[in-house]
């Protein structure tokens, strides 16, 4: 079976990372706890996946304070948007080619 892997980015192999990107694609900015609720993962797990995406520069953080509590919000970068769209296109091609 031949699989088109040109644009299937390595970073999106993980379903949680793919989930983070999906949620951030339709929301301007989300904080850690909201992401956790949507994705149903543990703190540590989510943090490590966010780190990985941050390292790829697909997402970025904006730190601020609510009162005295630090609040970190995550959003998708332009690069991340492009990578995510390419990934979707590649998925589409892949599925079409196998029908």
């Amino acid at each position: 079976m031949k699989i088109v892997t040109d644009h299937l980015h390595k970073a999106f192999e993980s379903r949680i990372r793919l989930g983070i990107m999906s949620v951030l694609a339709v929301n301007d900015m989300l904080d850690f706890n909201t992401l956790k609720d949507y994705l149903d993962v543990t703190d540590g797990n989510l943090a490590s996946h966010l780190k990985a995406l941050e390292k790829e520069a697909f997402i970025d953080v904006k730190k601020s304070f609510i009162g005295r509590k630090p609040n970190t919000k995550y959003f998708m970068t332009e690069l991340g948007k492009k990578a995510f769209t390419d990934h979707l296109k590649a998925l589409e091609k892949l599925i079409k080619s196998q029908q």
Partner: protein
Amino acid sequence: MKVEQDYIRDIAEMRSLMERSSKFLSLSGLAGIMAGVYALAGAYIAYRFFNFNPDKIVYSIVKPESLYADLFKVVLLAIIILILAIGTAIFLSFKKAHKRGEKLWNPTARRLLIHMAIPLIAGGLLILILTSKGLIGLIAPFTLLFYGLALYNAGKFTYEEVKSLGLIEIGLGLISSYFVEYGLLFWTVGFGVVHIIYGIYMHYRYER
């Protein structure tokens, strides 16, 4: 290496995540039905016991004191109905969100509320101003109109059907601002009958 099945599952999961995180889907059809029932009861009480049935836009020409006393009761009644309807909606949404394993108060709920609140508050203030100037006949049409605008606006952040509901209310509001003498009747249809039909439709479509 993943196989085709995995990718299809990935896509399904992404789709569901995108929808869940961008739309508020805990709205309950039952809440619509209940809101309709409250509205029907309220309209009946206002008409039957408070003699509320404005047939002209301006009431200030004849200004019997009893009119303003009755009007005050009608406003009070309207506030009670509003609180009942909103309370029921929040309670049922809370239950639905709980059943879906989600929190009621999340970014989608916040977005929905803000987009509804702006037309509603603008309309509410306008109606208060009109009432204070004696333009009582416009209360019913304008509540329909601004409620419709709020729903249409909110439709982007919840079920698509809310947009259609909004358009119907806008239409009813416009028609009834022309036929002012049937204002209460249109209001009863818009807030009562339409809500009940919409609620039943949503309940059968999404909650069974």
